[in-house]
């Protein structure tokens, strides 16, 4: 059974502030340039019992989408159909009044949730019990609560209804650890009872753990829709690559330095990532042996130099860097004409991810950079085990 059906839904906000624009808009005449589209042509279906995640960057239209489904906004075009009772937790504590007591606030939330008068007393008691706030606290105005107490009450009041569809916008990180666990359990129990949960979060770990399907919104459009792992991984890759302005680099080919530093005594010519058979590679498995081959070229009479190599993740996070002058007894390299410098990894302990190299040619002190090429030789590593993170650390479990 489908619970939510969106058919090519668009939502545009009107930006004009001139009264004339607004008057025209009142009669349905809107100038196209004064509309800002928060959501364009989004179609999706959520079935009963699904836990559906919505991810995307800030301003991608996630909140607008949730508001449309919750019914606090209308679509500009397209249709939104929702079957069943909805509880929307778009902002924790929205609708609370600081001057009123906890009890009064609970009662109002109950009335807004449509709790019938006959069930009101039971509802209020349940919310109070779930929040674990003692009655003497609930007698006080909400403004006297600590933020943790306030959030506990707000979450309890909002989720104690019995909805078919629960909509949650970034509300899981509330209260202390104990209460976080309780609220997560509540969402899990909604899920296990076969309710539909719609969940929007920046916390991709929680999205991974909770959702069975995910929609990725980008600039108001549906970029990808599918299984959680597939969509979240694609989003993570996109996020990292956006942060790294990648050089034009073709995976699987050595990097040739098209613009060596002018006037530098020693220049970088070529860099390649090779496996142990000397083949240039763009794909490795964790613990596979490999090496970075750097070719430099010196002008006649050039001073000796050093070479540095760094492995960088595609979000520019530096994973590991080393240089020829790091060992205590290191001598600078004398280069006459061309010279190959090889950095050998007998067992590359990188875990799954997208990585790049950055290579530097330095003077004999290791401080001045003669030439460099950053974010080159993109390569992918696939992990074999279940460990997560960037690198495999030597370890053992003592049980």
């Amino acid at each position: 059974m489908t619970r939510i059906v969106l058919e090519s839904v668009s939502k545009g906000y009107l930006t004009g502030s001139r009264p004339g624009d607004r008057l025209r808009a009142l009669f349905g005449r809107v100038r196209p340039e004064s509309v800002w589209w928060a959501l364009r042509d989004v179609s999706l279906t959520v079935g009963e019992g699904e836990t559906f995640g919505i991810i995307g960057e800030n301003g991608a239209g996630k909140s607008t989408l949730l508001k449309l489904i919750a019914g606090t906004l209308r679509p500009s075009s397209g249709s939104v159909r929702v079957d069943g009772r909805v509880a929307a937790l778009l902002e924790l504590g929205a609708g609370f009044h600081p001057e009123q007591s906890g009890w009064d606030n609970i009662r109002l939330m109950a009335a807004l949730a449509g709790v019938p008068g006959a069930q009101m007393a039971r509802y209020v008691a349940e919310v109070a019990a779930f929040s674990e706030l003692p009655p003497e606290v609930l007698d006080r105005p909400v403004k006297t609560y600590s933020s943790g107490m306030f959030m506990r009450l707000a979450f309890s009041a909002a989720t104690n209804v019995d909805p078919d569809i629960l909509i949650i916008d970034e509300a899981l990180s509330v209260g202390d650890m104990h209460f976080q666990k309780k609220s997560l359990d509540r969402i899990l129990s909604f899920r296990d009872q076969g309710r539909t949960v719609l969940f929007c979060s920046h916390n991709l770990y929680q999205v991974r753990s909770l959702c069975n399907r995910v929609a990725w919104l980008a600039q108001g459009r549906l970029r990808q829709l599918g299984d959680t792992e597939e969509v979240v991984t694609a989003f993570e890759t996109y996020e990292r690559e956006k942060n790294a302005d990648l050089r034009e680099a073709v995976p699987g080919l050595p990097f040739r330095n098209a613009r060596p530093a002018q006037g530098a005594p020693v220049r970088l010519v070529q860099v390649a990532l090779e496996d142990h058979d000397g083949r240039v590679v763009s794909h490795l498995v964790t613990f596979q042996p490999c090496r970075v081959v750097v070719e430099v070229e010196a002008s006649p009479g050039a001073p000796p130099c050093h070479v540095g190599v760094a492995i960088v993740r595609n979000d520019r996070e530096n994973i590991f860097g080393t240089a020829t002058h790091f060992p205590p007894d290191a001598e600078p390299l004398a280069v006459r004409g061309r010279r190959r410098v090889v950095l050998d990894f007998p067992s590359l302990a990188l875990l799954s991810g997208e990585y790049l190299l950055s290579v530097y040619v330095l003077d004999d002190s290791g401080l001045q950079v003669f030439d460099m090429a950053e974010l080159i030789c993109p390569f992918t590593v696939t992990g074999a085990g279940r460990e997560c993170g960037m690198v495999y650390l030597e370890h053992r479990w003592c049980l």
Partner: protein
Amino acid sequence: MPDRWLPVQTLRVLRLWTRREIASRYAGSGAGLLWALLHPLLNIALFYFVFAVVLKVRVPELALENGYFFYLLAGLLPWLGLSEGVVRAAQSLVANEQLLQKVVFPVAVLPLSAILASLVPQLLGMVVLTVLLAFQAALDWVHLLWLPLLLLGQLALSAGLGLLLAALSVVFRDLVQLVPVLMQFLFYATPILYPRSLVPEAYQHWFLANPVALLMDGYHAAFLGLPWPSASRVGLLLWSLGLAGFGLWSFRRLRLLLGDWL
């Protein structure tokens, strides 16, 4: 959220939200309701001094000693309730725009509760007025029977006006600033400070265009036994129904635009 708001659910939200309005408006500070009453009391004292003591305005139809004082109270009390309600109702949607996007809400509750909460000082004042009149033995209890109907008419008028202005404010934000000015104008166009009978005959029929003036005719009749022409009664009835209907109609159409502007 209910699939659709049933009247009983909306009424429950209205009741609780009005209670919240009252609590936050009148009980926020230590002296509470006293502060809320101070404003009308000062107003009354000021107007009484200027118009009764300095300008020596009298109400010709009233034989009562201090007649002007009672005339002033009978009109000013409902006026203060009505005008505060309308001004606050007009602001209510714009002020709560964020809330309305976060919580599914029977939106009409906001302006209506603003209007209901504004009745509190008015009703208290009317009790005091009744007691004072009774002490002067100047009260015709039969006329007081009009009060419930008049309050209903006042509610219809202010709800219609409040809903209309609240909805228009969604589209035209500046209206929120303009409403108090308009209310000021309406105040002087209504026989509250001056007896209607002092207005030249040529202008009398203009009062039919001012529903608040017709409402004041009713209150003056109910408390002081002043004449209440039938044209005024019929006019008040028609205005109440018309304004309430028009306010509701325009509100239901315009409130959909809430949240459409950045």
